[in-house]
């Protein structure tokens, strides 16, 4: 009798747990979810949010899922908030929107200029949204940007979103800006957030063809000289103050940002040729040591010293030049030093004087000058950043060229 009662009790428990957990299982079942790979935020005509969801076939979210090219599907919806947009979308598509594979979050420039604090808090609060999801501010509407983000060399859109920022480590022309880092910087008292700057290349192709040849000082998304099958671009950086978009950085400024933040494994840079007037040579630089930052307070103004150390090899070589000659290499090194010091200085003063946004998190270095948190808070770093003075010291050591050392 006792044994029977025990068995009965176990069966009842199993039934109870089956019923209790089946609803959660059902909600996360791959057949019942609509997998979002990208989200775009625009301002609608009614001043609401216009949210674009890019869905993909659930089986194509991983490399192993499918090798066939699957066309993603776009849906847009007007709603006062993200949560209500998701609810409306759930109703319309008859499935539950799942953001756990959302790799790209795009904000239009218009919305970003208005401030995206609420959207960032909501997305960071969502357990499904990965902190590694990339964040882009699009010069065009977010919907247009997502529509035109198509993989050209990959079959899968998810694979494209996973890898499209990988080049940042060896070019320095874009950055792997994530929502996790954005949220951190937005709530941090020693830094400001940033996002990738996106755009559509075809929009300005005519204006580009009419203008003079672009240099790396002018190139950024929508002003990119590249042409080909790809349409969306991700070059440069969108700078925020708090949660509000305040300015853009072009690709060389983005490179400086990457140098100061130690996020580069190497980069190619065109420097004035010391051996020939009005010409440039390309040098491939690799950091020897991490960029050292030291911050002091001098006469109540922040004074920040930045030391960079690179070794480099000449990429574009000229005729009749001996690239194994010590004097020649020294001249190129000196040219490199002054060029990099100049662009780093311009970049840092632009972030401080013009944008007043410490996207390099330099505030964390100033904290050592204070004994207590209240002293630091009273100093008010975010308002003092515009008064910062920079001392930049770049030490480049050009080793030689690559295969040919003498022409």
């Amino acid at each position: 009798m006792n044994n029977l009662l025990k068995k009965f009790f176990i069966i009842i428990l199993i039934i109870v747990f089956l019923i209790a957990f089946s609803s959660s299982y059902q909600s996360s079942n791959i057949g019942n979810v609509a997998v979002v790979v990208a989200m775009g935020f625009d301002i609608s005509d009614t001043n609401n949010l216009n949210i674009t969801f890019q869905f993909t076939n659930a089986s194509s979210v991983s490399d192993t899922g499918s090798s066939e090219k699957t066309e993603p599907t776009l849906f847009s919806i007007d709603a006062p908030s993200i949560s209500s947009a998701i609810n409306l979308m759930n109703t319309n598509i008859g499935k539950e929107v799942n953001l756990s594979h959302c790799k790209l979050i795009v904000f239009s420039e218009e919305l970003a200029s208005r401030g995206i604090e609420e959207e960032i808090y909501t997305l960071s609060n969502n357990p499904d949204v990965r902190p590694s999801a990339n964040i882009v501010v699009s010069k065009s509407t977010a919907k247009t940007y997502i529509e035109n983000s198509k993989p050209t060399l990959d079959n899968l859109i998810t694979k494209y979103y996973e890898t499209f920022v990988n080049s940042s480590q060896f070019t320095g022309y874009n950055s792997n800006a994530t929502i996790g880092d954005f949220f951190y910087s937005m709530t941090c008292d020693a830094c400001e957030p940033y996002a990738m700057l996106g755009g559509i290349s075809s929009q300005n192709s005519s204006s580009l063809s009419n203008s003079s040849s672009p240099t790396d000082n002018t190139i950024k998304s929508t002003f990119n000289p590249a042409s080909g099958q790809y349409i969306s671009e991700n070059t440069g950086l969108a700078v925020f103050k708090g949660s509000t978009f305040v300015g853009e950085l072009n690709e060389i400024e983005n490179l400086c940002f990457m140098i100061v933040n130690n996020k580069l494994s190497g980069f190619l840079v065109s420097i004035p040729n010391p051996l020939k007037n009005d010409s440039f040579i390309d040098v491939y630089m690799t950091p020897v040591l991490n960029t050292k930052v030291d911050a002091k307070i001098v006469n109540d103004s922040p004074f920040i010293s930045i030391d960079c150390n690179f070794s480099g090899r000449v990429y574009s070589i000229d005729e009749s030049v001996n690239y194994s000659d010590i004097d020649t290499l020294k001249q190129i090194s000196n040219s490199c030093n002054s060029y990099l010091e100049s662009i780093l200085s311009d970049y840092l003063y632009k972030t401080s004087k013009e944008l007043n946004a410490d996207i390099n998190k330099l505030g964390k270095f100033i904290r050592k000058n204070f004994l207590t948190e209240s002293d630091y808070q009273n100093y008010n770093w975010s308002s003092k950043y515009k008064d910062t003075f920079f001392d930049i010291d770049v030490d480049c050591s050009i080793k030689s060229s690559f295969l040919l050392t003498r022409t």
Partner: protein
Amino acid sequence: MIKSKFTTVEAIMLVLTIFLTPSILSMPKNLIDTTRSSILINIVYVTIIAIFIAILIYRLLKNFPSYDIIDISEYLGGKCFKSIIGTIFILYFLISSSILLRNFCECLKMVYYPMTSVVFIILAFIIATCLSSKLEFSTAVKVNVIVLPLLVISVLFIFFANIKNFSFENVFPILGEGVYNTFIIGLGNLGAFLGIIILYFLPPYLKKPEDMKKIAITTTIIAGIYILFCVSIILFMFRFLLNVDEVMPLYYTTRYIEFGDFFQRLESFFLFIWILVLTSFVTINIKLSMDIFKKLTNAKNISPMVYSFGLIIFAIAIFPKDYAVSKFIESTLYSYWTFGISFALGIGILIFANLKKRKNAHLPKQKEVLEANE
């Protein structure tokens, strides 16, 4: 009479379970709240004090070999006093299990079971712990020897896997909220060493009671180092967590662990380890409560009490109306209560019992002197 006897390693793991398990919830964040960037100094400071407290407890227990705090209470105040103290400690073990269980299950619900009532998630834990509590205490402790290192490894893994995200400059301003907050108000962070409470019950369980001092000091030092790692992860990684409240700060940091494109989303692995640790924690608390209950009632067979204790834990766990209430209990009420019981009540009983023993030891000598004089 306690049947189960533990080796020194098992005893260390047992004590560490009580010390370390709360770290998977909001404990590291609560520690940082009072001192902010000076938390590392504060943890070193409170660890040193905790070591002295552990040594003090060992010294006070030394005069009562193989006695636990319940036996000592009986010696001090008789059976009635023993019953009161025993009941307080049983309540302590059951409530601490309930609060931890509730908050952990709330997180599980948020992440994995959004459509399931938290009651069923708690119930699943209760059934698992009741079944494991039906086994011998030594079995639970042996399993714990395997499970607890996983917790330590998981935290070390989080630390080293996230090291690329660390900003070591976050340790500045070095004095955080100031000297007073770091060294005086920061004394409240001794609450992180609530596991000290188990030292009061350890002597009868030890195969080698002479290792008690070793166990007390070793566990406190390991707990100190472990807590240092936990708070370092949060401090170095996310200064914003000082301003933002997270459900499970350590869980939050696991979401940032990625090794290339292949190894991503490792957080479920950590949650799995923490589920095992929490089950072990609740099992140990139930077993300790049962042993105390046995001492109080002199009952021969207390095995069915497992279900009663399980039900009490379940009832207390579902009692808070929502997560905000259970979080408040965990971060505020529970820590004050812990302070009162772990340090004030426990050490108080031991000091008075030692004084009584010393007084009683003098009495026969005084009698002898009086008789000799006569």
